[in-house]
């Protein structure tokens, strides 16, 4: 456990050592600020059924930003080690492969969570200023951030997998971007093509992060989503472990 925590803290630190982290932080802060601003603007236009949480998490700029942040967070985790050769020093120390994979995943996840911290402040400010309890219920907050955490875990595991595939960070970023976007658009499929079978429509909505967020930001916490994201993340991490081992062994 000590080893895992050491590896994890090294991963988190190395995130913050890289300039990319600050670019992502600034970009994200600006984008979420914009979303919040437009959300408040929307609410102040008159009576509406939507809460500030829904207005914030269900806007187009928010989703675009959401997809864009994963590749830069995860692209370096394995690629850089392979490129610099440090993988050799790392993997000849008495550490196990799964410890390394989980630490890298965990490090990226910690950074991702740090990214969200400032947004909590927005809602505190909103509460203070608007004093409108109905517009922001505790269940909606829990739901939204839980959904963010779970979707984040899945997409970070996809990013880790992409990074384990190649020693080129750009290639890793492009792969994870494509997979995550595809995932995302898959959820939107039922909007684009009206005449698909109901089974497929059900499957698409089962996978749709967008729809999940719609539910969760209303405070509807559905346990099927936990199974979906949990098993997806586990599968991606397992694949990452296999690819990581394979690359090292054939190197």
């Amino acid at each position: 456990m000590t080893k895992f925590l050491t590896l994890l803290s090294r991963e988190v630190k190395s995130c913050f050592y890289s300039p990319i982290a600050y670019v992502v932080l600034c970009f994200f802060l600006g984008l979420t600020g914009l979303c919040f601003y437009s959300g408040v603007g929307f609410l102040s236009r008159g009576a509406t059924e939507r809460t500030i949480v829904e207005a914030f998490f269900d806007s187009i700029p928010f989703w675009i930003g959401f997809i864009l942040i994963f590749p830069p967070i995860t692209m370096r985790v394995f690629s850089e080690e392979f490129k610099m050769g440090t993988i050799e020093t790392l993997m000849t120390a008495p550490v196990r492969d799964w410890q390394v994979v989980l630490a890298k995943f965990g490090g990226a996840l910690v950074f991702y969570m740090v990214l969200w911290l400032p947004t909590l402040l927005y809602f505190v400010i909103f509460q203070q200023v608007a004093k409108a309890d109905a517009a922001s219920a505790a269940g909606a907050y829990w739901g939204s951030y839980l959904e963010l955490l779970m979707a984040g875990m899945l997409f970070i595991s996809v990013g880790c997998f992409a990074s384990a595939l190649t020693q080129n960070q750009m290639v890793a970023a492009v792969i994870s971007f494509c997979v995550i976007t595809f995932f995302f658009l898959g959820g939107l499929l039922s909007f684009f093509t009206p005449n698909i079978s109901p089974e497929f429509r059900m499957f698409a909505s089962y996978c749709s992060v967008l729809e999940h967020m719609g539910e969760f930001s209303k405070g509807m916490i559905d346990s099927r989503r936990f199974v979906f994201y949990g098993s997806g993340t586990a599968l991606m991490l397992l694949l990452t472990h296999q690819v990581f081992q394979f690359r090292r062994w054939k190197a």
Partner: protein
Amino acid sequence: MIKVENLTKRYAGVTAIHDLNFHVEKGEIVGFLGPNGAGKSTTMRILSSYMPATSGRASIAGFDVFSQSMQARQHLGYMPENVPLYPDMRVTEYLNYRATLKEITGTRQRERVGDVKELCALKEVENRIIGTLSKGYRQRVGLADALLHSPDLLILDEPTIGLDPNQIRQVRDLIRNLGRHHTILLSTHILPEVEMTCSRVVIINRGKIEAADTPENLVNAMRAAGGIRLEAKVGMDNGVEEIGKLPGVKEVAMETEDGWTIFTLRTDSRTDPREALWRLATDRRWTVRELSRRRATLEDVFVELTLGDEV
């Protein structure tokens, strides 16, 4: 300390090492030599549990490097080629991080990190960021890392590559000192280094072991262990045939330069025909201006074994 049995590693279609067998005893400093691409790094990577072999077995301190990999790693300090380090960490921070990974914690960690910094002369750069260090210092950080858990065995892949002559000398002294307490397997291309530091040499070429012995024995066992050079003014009858008949002489070559005849003799390693040669020259009243012996070096052995018939 190291035992390698029938070790084979195949990459997609290429056999990197083929059926290697060798062993390293406790306390030895063994030089692992071979041309680039001979399979040195592959062997070292297998020994360090970085990658598994295709077939065969290898063990370190009695622990199989594949099935008992964690124990084997505890007994081994490995410094990979080109010493990959995290450029964004500080020297002490890096050594502390590595120490924790190697299960050295608390007071012992502080002691060991202090010890290796002293041993590798890193005190003056302990707070510098690794990315800003010179190659020589980086090499020493790598070595300090390998020594952290005071392993019985050190495997060093080209520890002197890219260093200047002064740094090479420092690393050589360091390795020789380490040899008192550690078993060392090191690969290098600087052969005089090996002659000075190593008690035994394993030469590998195209994935196969060509020779494994002490440097002296290897030099002595060479086909042409050394040469003798005689420069003299000779008459019309130059005496090549007579020189060729002297005991121990295998081959004589002759050339002339400004009226002087230069004989180059290839000789057996155990006999020294210089005295007989001198007598021959005086009998014939040759004027001699040079009679010298050139000893074969490990470099000759290396070239002969690894170039083989291609010369």
